[in-house]
């Protein structure tokens, strides 16, 4: 389903660059191919260029260089209204002077579709987002979540094959957001549409997407399915941006095909997977997920390197325990453990030994 060849994707960015002022590139050499039916998320901090990419795809910004292709056809010079791309905006952009039904009917009207057919399609779209009875309301009379559904229905009502979503859930509260994430995902799966979804919320990206493109500094830092992104970040930015992350600085002491021993700045040795290091003596930032840290010596490999750690703080968070440790001179090292019946609760002041499986710890660029 995932295509890596840039030539046969449904949506293709081919060497796209974008500059607003002629001096700085907001998007630097973007190459991205999105398969038909794929749910791709562009994730990144604000200013990383992800929204610009979306706007270029929608046609509201022009690419300074490079080509954007949709269904094999270059669309650089096609105005937005002829691209046939559905779009859901951050603030929904429901027309306040029209009723819900009129909002949905708008894209059909401009396509000169007959009244009877319009009404059927509007009703079908409304039913799809479970808002069948709300056609006569004005957007201002709806709650945020309801407006969100209408905006989604409006983007889908004219049967666009590609739907762009620009942080559509940003204005909703946490619970509703989580609910809507699944709903959007289900609808897009059912309809088989291609979705390009922009967000700065990594949870959203991980839960909804087939693939996630992590943007930073106008480049895609990593393009991968959610699990790969989380467990095998390619560089320190991705590692720190996605999920919680413990970092330690050190130098490569010994390097093999799939194991590198890193000497931390305080002299301790640890086992890591070499990702962005190639030779002995390289400075490296070592990344390890809090839930992969182990302090039960019996669960570690017999010859694994371990570190001494002092428990600084124990926080009870319901489903998990969150423990802050001082490790190798840093006192922001986090360990997460599942709240299981046999789980041990660490006490502040306790001295423990921690370690991990080598493949969970990644030696990245410094």
């Amino acid at each position, binding site marked *: 389903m995932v295509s890596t060849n840039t030539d046969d994707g449904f949506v293709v960015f081919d060497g796209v660059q974008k500059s607003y002022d002629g001096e700085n590139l907001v998007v630097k050499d973007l190459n991205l191919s999105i398969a038909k039916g794929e749910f791709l998320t562009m994730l990144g901090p604000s200013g990383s260029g992800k929204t610009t990419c979306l706007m270029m795809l*929608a*046609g*509201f910004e022009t690419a300074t260089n490079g080509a954007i292709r949709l269904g094999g056809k270059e669309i650089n010079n096609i*105005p*937005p*209204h*002829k*691209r*046939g*791309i*559905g*779009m859901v*905006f*951050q*603030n929904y*952009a429901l*027309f*306040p*002077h029209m009723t819900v039904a009129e909002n949905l009917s*708008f*894209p059909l009207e*401009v*396509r000169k579709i007959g009244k009877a057919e319009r009404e059927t399609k509007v009703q079908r779209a409304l039913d799809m987002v479970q808002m069948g009875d709300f056609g006569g309301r004005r957007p201002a009379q709806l709650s945020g979540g309801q407006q969100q559904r209408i905006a989604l229905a*409006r*983007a889908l009502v*004219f049967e666009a094959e590609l739907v*762009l979503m620009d942080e559509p859930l940003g204005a909703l509260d946490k619970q509703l957001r989580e609910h809507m994430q699944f709903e959007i995902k289900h609808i897009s799966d059912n309809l088989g549409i291609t979705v390009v979804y922009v967000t700065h919320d990594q949870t959203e990206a991980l839960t909804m997407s087939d693939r996630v493109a992590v943007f930073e500094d106008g480049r895609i830092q990593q393009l991968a399915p959610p699990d790969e992104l989380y467990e095998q970040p390619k560089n320190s930015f991705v590692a720190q941006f996605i999920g919680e992350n413990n970092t330690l600085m050190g130098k490569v002491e010994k390097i093999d095909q799939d194991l590198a021993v890193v000497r931390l700045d305080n002299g301790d040795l640890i086992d890591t997977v070499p990702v962005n290091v190639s030779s002995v003596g390289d400075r490296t930032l070592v990344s390890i997920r809090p839930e992969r840290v182990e302090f039960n010596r019996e669960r570690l490999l017999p010859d694994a390197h371990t570190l001494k750690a002092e428990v600084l703080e124990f926080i009870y968070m319901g489903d998990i325990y969150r423990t802050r440790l001082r490790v190798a001179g840093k006192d922001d090292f986090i360990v997460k453990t599942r709240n299981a019946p046999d789980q041990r609760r660490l006490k502040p002041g306790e001295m423990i030994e921690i370690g991990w499986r080598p493949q969970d710890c990644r030696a990245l660029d410094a």
Partner: protein
Amino acid sequence: MTDATNSPSTGPMLSADGTPLKKSLQIALRRQKLRALALVAPLLLFVLVSFIAPIADMLFRSVENEIVSETIPRTVIALEQWDYQDGNAAAPSDDIYAALYVDLSEAEEFKTHTRLGSRLNYETTGMSSLLRKTGRGIGRMDTDEYTKQFEALDPKWEDPAVWVAMMQSPGIADILPETASAWQSWQRIVANKNDVLAEEQPEDFIYTMLYRDLIAQPASAIAAYSGSGAEMLQAADSAVDGFEAISLREQFLDIDKDWADPQIWGTIKAFSSPYTAGYFLSSVDLQLTPAGIEPQPENQQIYMLLFGRTMFMSMVIMGSCILLGYPIAYLLSNLPLRTSNLLLILVLLPFWTSLLVRTSAWKVLLQQQGVINDILVWLGLVSDADRLVMINNQFGTIVAMTHILLPFMILPLYSVMKTIPPSYVRAAKSLGATNWTAFWRVYFPQSVPGIGAGSILVFILSIGYYITPELVGGTTGTFISNRIAYHISSSLNWGLAAALGTILLAVVLLLYWVYDRIVGIDNVSLG
């Protein structure tokens, strides 16, 4: 928690100490309310004194007409018995002339007859000079014959003290009603001269009234009087039939023939009530004549034309402000903040120069030897012989006022457009709308509140505009306000000015109401 607060079914909610909740809320809010009131009080007073009160006064002036009944009260009462009947009226009786004689004798002392003349002159030309002339002549009437005849009968009639004693006697007003009434005028005249009543010999009009009373009253009534000067009166009563009679009507006609004209009397009668619709009728090219309401003569019908022109030109100015202001406001609202602020300053720049300077600048530009004509001639578009007439007509007024009022359209438009997120138009385009459709179906409807606010502002401002039409309007480009100003400062017909202003105010309120019904005032937004 007390039981009372827990049981809403038993009467009003009570607060914890048992007082009704509403009452304790009121007490709690009272301080806040008083504070708020104290804060707005200065402005409220200022507005009351400087805005509400003048408007109320203006509204009142447009119907107020007490000057006639105050200046010539006896005449007004006497005229009640008289019918005008289309100019074929019976000549007013001597009673009416007698009433006018006393009234004008007093008015002449206080010089109020000239003001009355000015007032009535608005309705019938010639009234002003007639009353001035009569005021001058009223002291020289032949009524001194009566005085002489009474003095000849008994020299004591010359003695003011005798008069004072007699007029103070009880019952004198019953037997000598006109004399008693005239005596009150005499008292006021003497008081006005700072003289002593008992030292001044009464003027001829008192003797005239005495003569009329004695003639009118039966001898038995005079005989029944027993107060001060009873014998003198009885003696005079028996002698008065032999006196030489003076016709007051003739005396008035000697001063001016016009006093025989029923039109004059008809006008006085028509405007004798303390409140009149006359000013309003004049404002709509009608007039109140003795015979009823009639249209003004054709050559004097000006106000409906002016009202119509004011409305029409205000509409045109409003329309051109929308046409010119909308694109500018759109541009401003879509530019980056730095640029739009700079441009906004340019929009506001006219506010910082004097209105007179701007209007005069248009004079320089538009006149026949002006800049624009010069350029057109230089370009060869217009021959030197027929330069365009662009000023001192409607065109000049519309151009200058559109320029002056344009900021009032741009600012509300801008502040409304600023709040329309660009994502609406983007959404429309992404849904398949062309640029025009996106603008017309999505952007424009949302900018309508700005158009509404700007239109109301511009229309209401222009409908009452004065300076610019006065300077560049010539004769065909002046507004109703110029006429109002004329009546305030030149013709001094404040009543008519007030009536015109009241109509203008009513028209504005009416349009406001219509606008509210059609567009809805809630939709008006200033940002």
